[in-house]
């Protein structure tokens, strides 16, 4: 059994059939996702936003963990591809009645679903489903524990590419709780694969991973040092539960040291862009003047999120289809030979 998630998500020909992680994917494939998303942006600006690509397909949003933005952008992406979409609030339904995850999934598969969009609090959940549970359903990882959030990372890459022309050669700083962030992890892999000059992580020692070098980034403990010469600043949301675990003294203290203010932004390159995956905590990790300022591209990220999700969904569905065709063709050959 193949347990490397980067391989599980590819067909024998190297096409995408699930989207689980940005780790281990080639530069060509990541670029293809961005190029396809670029084309979908142009369809989003039309009066009729739908294209008929996934007509007749059924997509199920399986959110075991709450999310409004990610779930709704996946829903819009599916609808704009003309797929039918089912939203399941798992937290309040079957599993709370004692049904196991696997039974829930097998039931949904029996309803002829073509794609599951999965968010789960456990790292590796999407990978497990893709490999062990329903391999013939395309699985899109919408965030699993601390592990990965690949569509968020790719929409961030698209944002950088559209606003800074390319990712190659850019200095990118990710600020905040890197240790617990699946977004940061997926971003770091994608940035390095796409040729960023330097990926920096900035935060207090308690919220930075120990193995930054191995991850492919450079650790900074002070904004004054880390923001110097940056082209892109990505702020992460501070999760309040971290405060209860005594990893941080207080919100006020965090804002003083790591909150992005106009003063701190001035340390970066004058044409630097400011990004945030949302939802933003104004006055905790970012000040309103910056969040709403000229250099902020936070709302553009949301628009690009739909296009990126449309790209990944259509590519994965296409990969699944090709694999099925190959199996079918192989079966026919066997019959002819027999």
């Amino acid at each position, binding site marked *: 059994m193949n347990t490397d998630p980067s391989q599980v998500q590819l067909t024998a020909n190297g096409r995408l059939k699930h989207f689980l992680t940005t780790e281990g994917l080639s530069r060509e494939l990541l670029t293809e996702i961005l190029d*396809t998303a670029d*084309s979908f942006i*142009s*369809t989003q600006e039309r*009066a*009729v936003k739908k*294209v*008929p*690509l996934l007509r007749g397909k059924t997509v199920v949003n399986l959110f075991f963990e709450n999310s409004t933005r990610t779930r709704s952008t996946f829903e819009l992406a599916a609808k704009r591809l003309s797929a039918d979409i089912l939203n399941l609030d798992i937290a309040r339904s079957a599993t709370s009645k004692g049904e196991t995850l696997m039974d829930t999934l097998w039931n949904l598969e029996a309803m002829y679903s073509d794609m599951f969009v999965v968010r789960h609090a456990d790292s590796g959940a999407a990978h497990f489903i893709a490999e062990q549970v329903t391999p013939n359903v395309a699985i899109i990882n919408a965030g699993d524990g601390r592990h990965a959030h690949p569509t968020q990372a790719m929409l961030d890459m698209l944002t950088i590419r559209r606003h800074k022309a390319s990712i190659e050669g850019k200095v990118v700083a990710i600020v905040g709780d890197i240790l617990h962030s699946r977004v940061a992890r997926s971003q770091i892999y994608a940035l390095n694969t796409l040729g960023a000059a330097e990926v920096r992580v900035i935060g207090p020692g308690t919220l930075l991973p120990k193995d930054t070098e191995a991850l492919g980034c450079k650790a900074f403990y002070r904004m004054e040092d880390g923001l110097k010469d940056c082209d892109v600043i990505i702020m992460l949301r501070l999760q309040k539960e971290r405060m209860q675990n005594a990893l941080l003294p207080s919100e006020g203290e965090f804002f003083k040291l790591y909150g992005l203010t106009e003063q701190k932004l001035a340390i970066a390159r004058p044409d630097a862009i400011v990004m945030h995956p949302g939802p933003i905590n104004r006055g905790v990790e970012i000040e309103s003047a910056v969040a709403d300022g000229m250099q902020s591209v936070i709302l553009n990220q949301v628009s690009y999120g739909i296009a990126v999700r449309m790209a990944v969904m*259509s590519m994965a569905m296409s990969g699944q289809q090709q694999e099925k065709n190959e199996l079918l063709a192989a079966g026919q050959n066997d019959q002819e030979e027999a």
Partner: protein
Amino acid sequence: MTLPDIEQTCTELGDRLATYLNDHQITQPLLVGIRTGGVWVADRLQQKLQTGDDVSSLDISFYRDDFTRHGLHPQVKGSELPDSIEDRHIVLVDDVVMSGRTIRAAMNELFDYGRPASITLVSLLDIGRRELPIQPDLTGARLELDNGQLVKLSGPNPMTLTLA
């Protein structure tokens, strides 16, 4: 078989299109080429017609009817059309018309951009083998190919035709 001189065919097609538009009292046509070859041909026709608009391009990848068979084309380029095609007279240009499926997809896509006043279909080559009731209004040349034979247009400067 001998293949036609493609630049020559294109020039003649431009002349005939000018006459056709004149006869139909279309004064401000919008040239829309289907990627990739159709855009090259549309560029040549534009040199002749000198319409006020740039040549638009249509990438029909998101509208193909064989997605479930062949999947997504890996090099989707996107379409480039003006903000509105509402009430415009469109000249839809392709390099080779065969089954008619590409044209069907292209017309479906055009209607998602708006409601054109008319669509005139122009094809540099027609190789027959139609599977849908779609016929070009103007064709540069009609080729009778052997079974299974196809033509391939390379370009854009110069455009050349080869048998495949």
